[in-house]
């Protein structure tokens, strides 16, 4: 069985469509980040108390809210969790308290207050607290700092590796593509108002690795073809490289996408955000290696050709260390 028998698609001819598509999603995400939902962060980064309560029968949000307000608990958010798989479908609720509940001294207070409030004021069914996350202001700041550093260093690490293995322009193109993927994925979180937690950041970093992976496969082929035939026009050569790797791209991304989809469907609510980030990210990451990274190489080359003195041939660096 074969998906693409000698595919011959003019990818670079569609670069303006790609640019438009990427712009629409990036701008939509940015608009949402700046003017609408912002970057919704979970308890990990903004601090506060998250209490996951398992009810014996379908919980009533209004009754919970009433019970909490009777006990003078301020500004709780109540969110029902919808399990797709798993056995305890739909009876879980996350009650979130703002940062003021998690001051560095009296940590357990918020949780015991909520427990008491529910015992006293919620009579529809029995309940059990199954998980509690309390993050104080200091820890929230530290975790945010940690996530920022990790993202920054992993982008830098890859740029350096690609610089060392290819040429700087390949590294730059790949990092731009990865940045594009991360931006659009975070934009999706903002648009759908899903919380970014520590595990989501882990997913974003994985996505950075994955998207880079995809880009490298295409770049490797471009490098190989450049060494084989230096006389071809660059856009043709890049098109050919993308087409040659197309089966692999679709097959690999498709399979990874399927496993991540399994995780999204069966993995439970704790990993929901994580798998959502990967489902979006893998799609975008595959798209970007074809539609962002490769055209960037060509654009760079054309820009250099324009600046070069008339009559001088300008070739894209074929990159170091081609092993033949």
């Amino acid at each position, binding site marked *: 069985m074969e998906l693409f028998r000698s595919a011959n698609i003019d990818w670079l001819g569609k670069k303006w469509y790609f640019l438009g598509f990427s712009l629409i999603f990036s701008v939509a995400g940015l608009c949402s980040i700046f003017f609408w939902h912002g970057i919704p962060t979970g308890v990990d980064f903004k601090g506060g108390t998250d209490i996951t309560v398992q009810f014996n029968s379908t919980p009533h949000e209004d009754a919970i809210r009433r019970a909490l307000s009777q006990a003078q608990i301020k500004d709780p958010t109540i969110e029902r969790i919808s399990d797709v798989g798993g056995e305890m479908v739909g009876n879980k609720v996350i009650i979130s308290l703002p940062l003021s509940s998690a001051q560095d001294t009296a940590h357990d207070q918020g949780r015991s207050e909520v427990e008491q409030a529910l015992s006293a004021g919620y009579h529809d069914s029995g309940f059990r607290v199954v998980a509690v996350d309390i993050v104080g202001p200091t820890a929230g700041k530290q975790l945010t700092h940690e996530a920022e550093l990790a993202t920054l260093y992993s982008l830098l690490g890859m740029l350096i590796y690609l610089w060392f293995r290819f040429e700087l322009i390949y590294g730059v193109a790949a990092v731009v593509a990865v940045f594009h993927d991360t931006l659009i994925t975070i934009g999706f979180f903002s648009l759908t108002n899903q919380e970014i937690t520590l595990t989501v950041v882990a997913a974003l970093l994985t996505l950075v690795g994955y998207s880079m992976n995809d880009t490298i496969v295409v770049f490797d082929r471009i490098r190989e073809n450049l060494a084989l035939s230096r006389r071809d026009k660059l856009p043709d050569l890049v098109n050919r490289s993308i087409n040659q790797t197309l089966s692999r791209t679709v097959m690999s991304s498709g399979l990874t996408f399927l496993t991540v989809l399994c995780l999204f469907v069966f993995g*439970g609510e704790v990993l929901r955000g994580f798998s959502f980030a990967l489902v979006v990210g893998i799609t975008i990451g595959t798209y970007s290696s074809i539609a962002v990274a490769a055209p960037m190489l060509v654009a760079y080359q054309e820009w250099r050709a324009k600046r070069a003195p008339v009559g001088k041939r300008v070739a894209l660096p074929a990159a170091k260390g081609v092993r033949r």
Partner: protein
Amino acid sequence: MGRNLASRTGAIIAVLVIFIYGIFGVPYGGLKASLERRINLGLDLKGGTHLVLQVHVIEAVNSETDRDVQALNTALASTGATAAKLDPNHPEVITISGGSEAQQSAIHDIITGSEYAGYDVTSTGVSGYKMTMRPTEVAAVEERALDTSIDTIRQRVNTLGVSEPQIEKYGLGDNEILVQLPGVSDPGRVENIIQSTAKLEIHAVVGSYGSMAEAQQANPGGIPPEDELLPGNNGEGGPDQYYLLKRLAIVSGTDFRDAQPSTDENGRPDITFDLTTEAGDRFYKYTDANKGTGQMAIVLDNQVREVAGIESAIRDQGRITGGFTEQQAEDLSLMLRTGSLPASISYLETRTVGPTLGAASIHEGVVASISGLLVVMICMLIYYRGAGVNANLALILNLLILLGFMGFSGATLTLPGIAGVILTIGMGVDSNVLIFERVREELKLGKTAAAAVQDGFGHAWTTIFDTHVTTIVSAAILFLFGSGPVKGFAVTLTIGLMANIFTAVFVSRTIFDFLLTKKPRGTMELSI
């Protein structure tokens, strides 16, 4: 070729056996029990409490200099000079003032003596000195405070009967401690016991007031530096009461030798304590000198628990009464026995997962993994037919190595870790897809099966190497910066990818070569 192939097959089987051993160990009590023994589950899977706390180590520096001030004042008594700490924001600075001109060299000799080698001494004005604890000394005191805190917390947690607690320094910020308590899903009592500094001291009473305002009125010049104002708390509520106490304790933390819950004459719970011999002598001297006139206060965690007149000289036994429940008396004597914390503690992060949620997460993780694995394996079989078998064998071996490594290294499997396993399944086949596509291309160019396999693997290798290195870079950075469960994700992903270089390239290649030896030379057929 034949011999080479045999040794390669041998290597693969050896790896297989080693890592299966890694997963199950020597199986006794059933495979499942063996598996559970070998693989270390994170708190998010087996349920438990994860606490991050911060030790306010500067308080330890403060009590260190307090002690030195006390000793200095004794040593300086004959010279007429006094030592005091004037700036509460800089507990590491001691100021020496007073003393006549003639005594200056004696004062200087005392404060530069070997007992105070940890201080830098500078002269301020005509007859005064500033002693500043050296930064290295401050760091050493802080380090010691952190270590002592860890020891104390460990003892307290052990006494509570928590099994396999993990208490260690935590690298995210300064002076932080990570406490992991498997199986504890209601951390309220543990938190209180850990957090309570249990700083028990006995101070001399200077005065007592009905309110803060009254205390301020009585001391218009502010509280004198050698005294401190503490709130009263007799455990039974009642009117506000403030006490002005001598700052330096008569006996404190390390002077207590033992503490036991007991009951007073009315049958109410209280606590009896014993002092060390040395502290007992000191206490005897003080109580003997002040009997009938003085008052002393028992101060617990900077609150005055009890004030009593000194009726007779006391040597080494005492009792704290009033307002305890039986549980409180028991917890408090536990804390006094295990020693007080050198500094107070605050909580930064508390995460609790109940056992049912943990079990549900394992269930969901396993279902997601198996369904992901099946989907990938079926797709590979349909798309690559015979070669799909290669890829699937390589994939299974990859997972075995991954789990075996977890067993050997004692690394912790967390829920994000399971996600890492699932992602390894997806990304693991990528290498085989790359190779197979390349082999197909080579076959299309008209090469023989053997040559196509040879060149396909050769060409794909560069790409596989680059892609793995970049992904491992991002996973390694996650490992270095990540904390808790996220670290578990980095672990499984990294191991999975490294194992994949072996399985997808070496194992899959060996299977191809094995198949090719059975075919006539120069054949073009290959099920791919």
